């Protein structure tokens, strides 16, 4: 769309037209871009700036004392570590399950496959609060699962409700649909010919998976990973209702610091730390997307 693309010597009228198109395009995105600037970017920048303002007698100085305070507090660090560990565990598990479902869908046809596809997308339409309460009823003490197990003679069930496993199950359940959508789309681009050729040459199922399929969908996997990670790391409802009181996921901790303890300054520091972690993964996501764009051109 740049004017360089025009062969030299073209009339000025064409160039003006392009300029007009560009302006029209910019005008179209101006409103959302402006909103983004005013409502998201500006407050974020001012909040980040604020976390580096340390109150001293008679004013403030710029410094990292607030971050030092966060990392010096073993309780806060335990919360951060807990959040990261369980986010990663949940991501990997959800990704593995989604990959399994996607592979099945790639190679299967018919009514059952369609049903499984529909079923795997179902969590997309269930709000977190509903699934949380449903899981309490299902996995909770004297819940459906325990009753079923006892029917077949298995006793000694210990509920995952209010332990780290509770939110983990919730996260995995919630984070199946989007990765399935992304990975199935990726897998559908792998040509049948490539797989058949490999098969003809005697490649086994694992070899096809690792040498033909995965290399071609690694981009989809990265995108899916980023989507799950960003959703889980800042989660609130699921860990709040299903998780243990302490350690807390950062989303819950942040809300409590702001809402209950009314310490907005500390909550801001927590938010910035979470934002930095998210933006690392977000950066991966954008880099992957951009590489794809360039590759396609």
């Amino acid at each position: 769309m740049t004017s360089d693309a025009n062969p030299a010597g073209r009339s000025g009228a064409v160039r003006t037209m392009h300029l007009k198109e560009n302006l029209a395009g910019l005008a179209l995105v101006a409103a959302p871009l402006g909103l983004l600037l005013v409502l998201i970017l500006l407050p974020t920048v001012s909040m980040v700036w604020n976390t580096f303002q340390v109150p001293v007698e008679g004013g403030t100085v710029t410094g990292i004392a607030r971050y030092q305070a966060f990392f010096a507090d073993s309780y806060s660090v335990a919360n951060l570590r807990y959040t990261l560990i369980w986010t990663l565990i949940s991501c990997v598990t959800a990704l593995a399950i989604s990959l399994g479902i996607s592979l099945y869908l790639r190679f299967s046809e018919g009514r059952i496959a369609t049903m499984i596809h529909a079923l795997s997308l179902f969590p997309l339409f269930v709000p977190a609060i509903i699934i949380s309460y449903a899981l309490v009823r299902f996995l909770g003490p004297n819940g459906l699962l325990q009753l079923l197990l006892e029917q077949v003679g298995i006793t000694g069930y210990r509920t995952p409700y209010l332990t780290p496993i509770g939110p983990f199950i919730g996260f995995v359940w919630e984070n199946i649909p989007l990765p399935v959508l992304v990975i199935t789309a990726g897998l559908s681009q792998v040509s049948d010919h490539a797989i058949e050729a490999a098969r003809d040459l005697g490649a086994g199922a694992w070899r096809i998976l690792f040498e033909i399929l995965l290399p071609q969908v690694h981009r989809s996997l990265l995108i899916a990973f980023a989507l799950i990670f960003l959703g889980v790391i800042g989660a609130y409802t699921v860990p709040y209702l299903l998780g243990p009181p302490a350690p807390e996921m950062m989303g819950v901790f942040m809300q409590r610091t702001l809402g209950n303890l009314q310490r907005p300054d500390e909550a801001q520091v927590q938010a910035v730390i979470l934002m930095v972690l998210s933006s690392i993964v977000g950066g991966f996501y954008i880099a992957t997307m951009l590489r794809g764009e360039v590759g396609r051109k």
Partner: protein
Amino acid sequence: MLNRRNFIISTAAMPLVLGTRAYAQDTRTLQVFIDGDTNISNWWNDIIKPAFEAANPGYTFNVTITRGVGDGNGTIAQRALAAMQSGTDPQVDYFEEYNPEDLEGSIEAGLWTAVSTDNVPNLSMINPAAIDIPVRLPYRGSQVLIAYDSAKVETAPRTFADIVAWAKANPGRFTYGRPDKGGSGSNFVIRAIHEGNGRDPSLFTRENFAQPQADEMLQKGWDILLDLHPYTFGEGTYPAGNTPALQLLAQGAVDMIPAWSDQAIQAINQGVLPETTKLVQLQDLALCGGFAYSSIPSNATDLDGALKLANFMLTPEMQTSCVREIGGFPGIDWSYLPAELKDEYIDVIPVSIPTFPSGDWQTAKNDGWYRVVATNIVRD
């Protein structure tokens, strides 16, 4: 399209419309704002409204529910303050529950009507424990009680020590909610702090919070709760709120919890909790509770009507309804209520209603609990 014929008709109809307006003014409609739970707004719409209309001919009220919208009644209070400053109609006569202290500067600005026996005669019957600043009207209360399944718990606990003893004898069968997620857990934690400090709530005031002594006083409560910690449900997996705690009791996962009186009574009536569920108040020192305060803006569109409504809410009939319908605690003294009501609720009537200050003490209590009691880290 407006042609001549329609124009004539509409102008001709105008006096009619105006006439209806004038007529409508004979029945005065008060604007009541509620941001409490459904049990409160249903009670106002289904029971109070017809009773108020019958007792005060020519008056009715319209309930607007602000629950979960913006800051609830706080937003409406801000609007009323803005209306006062600009001399316009605040479009509100009565806040079912709003604490004027929450809107900074509004009391000084004169936004709230001071109530006394002069303008609300029934205030003479008020429970002395509820008397507070004059710009808010204590008209109902809730208290935290101990709810237990009488099929599993043989003798009802009457003291805090009874609860601890029972919990230790029945590991995993008692729990309480996280203190920042709901009043039932919060007031149980406060009760433990009171227990550790000679059961003297007067040691805690809004003004006396000072760091080293406060930590020491709170630690006495933490010691008691830490002692209880391994015997609670899931060895210290406290449910995240009033409802999750009730849910554990309903599922038979635990046999004893602290619970709000109104929520527990409704749950029993609705069959959510088993019929064998009983409620009891501790007699050595009650668990804290609190009054719900109504407030009336001084620029209310119909101030007289709002005061009439306030007075009506303090009649023994409405106060009885508060106990019966929503499991609340009366704002007026029990001695003005029917004797049989008192007999029926004798187990839950506290000797006194202890309170715990808001502000720094609450914050220190909640954060301290997370850092000291809830963590499963072994401390030496």
